[in-house]
Structure formats: structure tokens, C-alpha cells
């Protein structure tokens, strides 16, 4: 039987992946989607590390390295998508301001 804790965490990881996927698809607000994406990533990383716990107690360091790289990659993509969201938000605001100032005729 594989090491029990790894089994439980592995299943949690898969669950987080599925929950994140559900959130990413069905959430309306953008910020919620990005949160879901991050949860999904954590789920995958959890699953990855539990793979390293093969039989016989020896722990495989390669998944750890993969997860470290994954965390850094996901933080930079989160930063980019948040910057994009704010950017779009800002132009939407300006666009709205211009429209209101111009009496709303200029579409």
C-alpha cells in the first residue's frame, strides 16, 4: 500500500484541480477566475509532490524541483494576467469618463 499521507494529499490535489477547473470555467468575475487558476495550480503541485513519495520511504527530489519551478511560473503569469485585468479596467474607466463628459453621444 503506498504511503498513506501521500494518498490523501494526492486525492486532495486532484480535488483542488477539479475545483479550480470548475471555478475557472463557471465564475463570472475575472478576479475569481484568476483565483481559481491559482488553486488549480496548487492542486497540480500537490499531486506532483505526492508522486515523489514512492514506496520505501525514499523521497524523489525531482518533483520538488518541478513544483518550485511551477510556483515561480504561476506567480509570473498571475502577475501578468492581473496587470492585464487592471489595464482593461482602466481603459474602460477612461472610456466611460470620456463618454459621460461628451454627453454620452460619442460612442
Amino acid at each position, binding site marked *: 500500500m503506498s504511503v498513506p499521507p501521500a494518498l490523501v494529499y494526492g486525492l486532495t490535489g486532484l480535488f483542488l484541480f477539479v475545483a479550480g477547473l470548475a471555478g475557472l470555467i463557471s465564475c463570472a468575475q475575472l478576479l475569481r477566475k484568476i483565483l481559481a487558476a491559482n488553486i488549480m495550480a496548487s492542486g497540480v503541485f500537490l499531486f506532483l509532490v505526492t508522486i515523489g513519495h514512492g514506496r520505501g520511504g525514499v523521497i524523489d527530489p525531482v518533483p520538488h524541483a518541478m513544483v518550485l519551478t511551477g510556483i515561480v511560473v504561476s506567480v509570473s503569469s498571475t502577475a*501578468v494576467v492581473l496587470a492585464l485585468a487592471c*489595464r482593461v479596467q482602466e481603459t474602460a474607466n477612461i472610456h466611460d469618463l470620456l463618454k459621460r463628459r461628451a454627453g454620452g453621444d460619442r460612442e
Partner: protein
Amino acid sequence: MMGLQLQSDCWLIWPVILPLSAALVAFLAKGQPRLSGLTGALLTALASGTLFLKVVNHGGGSYDLGGWQPPLGISLRGDGPAVLMVLMTAVTGLAISVYAGGYFQSRIAMGGKGRRHIVQERFFWPLWLLLWGALNGLFLSADIFNMYVTLELVALSSVGLTALSGKPASQVAAMRYLLASLLGSLSFLLGVAFLYKTHGSLDLATIQAALALSPPVALAMALISVGLMLKCALFPFHFWLAPAHANALAPVSAILSGLVIKGGWYLFFRFWQGFLPLVGDGVVVVLAGLGGAAIIWGAFQAFCQQRLKMLVAYSTVAQIGYLFIIFPLLAIGAGQGAAAVFYFAISHSCAKAALFLAAGSIFLQMGHDRINNLDGVRQILPITTFAFALAGLSLMGLPPTGGFIAKYMYLSLAVSQDSWWLVLVMVVGSCLTAIYICRAVSHVLSPRMVAGRSQVVVGASMEWSALALALVAILLGFIAPLPLGLFEVVG
């Protein structure tokens, strides 16, 4: 570097390292990014060219990074298809770089929101060279986790490039693109995890050697396939492609449609070389069905578009279908299927990039790209319209072009394997493609004259680079034996 004892295949590393370092230089040299960008592009193209020639002469090779053997370390594999894609990226990339130089020069010269274009150019070159390096890394990589990292690099840089144009439409499209590719990368990573769980190694060759159908492997196959389909926008997952490719800057649209899409597809092909023997006919037919649906749906959408760049973007959605139709025949043909689909990928890349470059020049000159009133464009931009027409020919698969040879190889393979539904899809596909391409070309080439001499804004280097790329698409019609000779080369 006198004392350098070059490792046998150290040439495999340069196409990846050179663009990445050129990107750093371009980022630091805030003063004139264009110069460093163009030199970087030229160096990378040269490196890719030498790699291609080396592999053609001495056969493929692999290169263990850090000196460690594959299961532990990462190795780069330079076999026939990989080097072919690297060469395709080099040729198309070089033309796009020259075009981009001219494009930003004329945009800045046009004045208007002056500073914005200077900032755009300052960030265009680092992002583009990073993307180029990532694509080369992706084509040459033989390690599945490394593929994940390169996929992520490709995704992030193309999103950065898409959002560069500053319009709200392009930034919403960039956001949607990034979310879709995040979803794709994560499901790809989970697939990689499952493969690692069952095979204990991250090297694709060792995994595919010991591949056997078991629940985790089946799951890995599904996850990886869905992830990569999202990346290359196959039919059910194509929602993000058209707005992103159409609203981006002219050179960026050419990069996205010509090159980035091929990255996702190339990995799909690489993985499915291992999965194909395991999987029953049903799954492969589903793949081909999705490809067929992509062709029909993409062509229909392209025909209904009012904007030229949207039409060309939806044409990408359709042409990707052609890349997936061939999967049922891959196992049967003795490498013919692979040769056909790779030749299609190459000729599509050149033709589509030329089409987008020409469309970009037309948009810049006319100020709009509404298809129905493009009169007089032929008069103002004769070379660009000629390039547009030639590129259109290659997409339609008419004789002098590479598209014709690819379509010929597809059809002869389909007919020899008696898969008549593929023949039907090919014929219907070419008719649909002909319809929307002819609509676009007839409007662009409309002989109606427009009074008065309007000032030509499009730079000469833009027109000639678009024409050069279109001529490459034509040339591909005649030099088929050279690239196809590579398909016997096994890395």
C-alpha cells in the same frame, strides 16, 4: 573561443541561447531596440540555418545539457521534424523581424500618438526574441517538463505581444488567451505528472519506448491532448484565437498565426507518435472529426467576416483543422503522413504570415480593414497586394505554391488508403477556403481606381518582406525534396 572542443551536436543549443540573449540585450539597450533586435534575429536565423544544414548532411543528433544522461538530465533532440520547424521559424521570423522594423519606423514617422509607438517598439523586440527562443527550445526539447516550461514561455510572451497594441479589444482578447493557455498548461502539467508517476522518467524517448496502455497513461494522454488542443486552438477550443490574432499589431498577428500555433501542434504530434499505437481507431477518428469540424466552421466564420484581419484569423482556425485531419493516416503511411502534415505546416506558416503582414500594411495605409471598401489599394500598394494574392494562392493550394504540394500529398495519401471521407473533407475544405480567400483577394485586387494620390505611409521594407515571405511560399512548391529528405533522419 579558440580552445573550444565543440561537442558533437553543440549546434542544437545555439538557436535557443542566441534569441534569449538577444532579448536581454534588446531590453537593456533602451536607446535603439530595433538595431539589437534585428541583429539578434539575423544571428538566430543563421544559427538555425547552420543547424539545418548540419542535420541534413550528418543526420540528427542529441545534446545532453549539463552533461547528464537523459533520465536524470535534460537533452535536446535535433531530428528531422524538429530541425524543419526550427528552420521554418527562422525563415518566417526573419521576414517578420524585417517587417516589424519597417512597421514601427513608419508608425513613429506617422506621428499621432508618437510616444506610444516608441514604447511599443521598445517592448516588442525583447518579447518577440524571447518568444523565438522559447519556440526553438520547444521544437528541440526532448524532456516533457522542459516542454511545459517552454510552452509557458511561449504563452506569456505571445500574450505580452498581443496586449502591446493597447486597444481595449486586444487586451481583453489577450486576457482570454492567457486564461485559456493557463488552463492548457496546467492540464498538460497534470498529464506530465501522471506520465512521470508511471514511468519514473521525464525523457520523452524513454517514456515512449516503454509506453503501455494503463489507466494513468490513458488519463495522461487525455490531459496532455486537451491541454495542447487548447494551446493550438483546435475546434472546440478556438474561441480565444480570432480576437487575439486579429486585434494585435500587424507583425504580432503574423507571429501568432504563423508560428505560435505550430508550437502547440508540434508537441501534440510528438506525443501522439507514442500514443498512436496504443489507442484504438475510435479516438483517432474523433481527432480527425474535430479537424474536419474546424475546417468547416473556420471557413464559414471567415466568409462571414467584414474585417480583413478577422477573416485571416478565422482562416487560421480552419487551417489548423488540416493539421489534425491526417492523424488516422499517420500510423499507416510509411512516414508519408508525417511528411505531408509537416509540409503543410511549413507552407501554411509562410503563407499565413505573409497574408497577415500584407493585411497589416493595408490596415496601416487605409486606416481600416473593412473588406468591402478596399478600392484603390492595388494602386497605392502594388507589391503588398501582389504578396497578399500569392499568399492567398498558397492557402488555397493552387499550383505554383507549397500549399499545392501539401494538398497533393494529403490527397494521394488519402486516396491510396481508401479513406474517402478524408478526400471529401479535403475537397469541401479547399472549396470553402477558395471561397473566402477569393472574396478577400478579389476585394484587395479590385481594379477600381481611386482619384488623387494619397501619401504612401507603408515603408518599403514592409512591402518587400511581405513579398519575400509570399515568394518563399511559392518557392516551397518547387524545392519539396530538400525538406522532405529530412523525414528519414531520426534524432
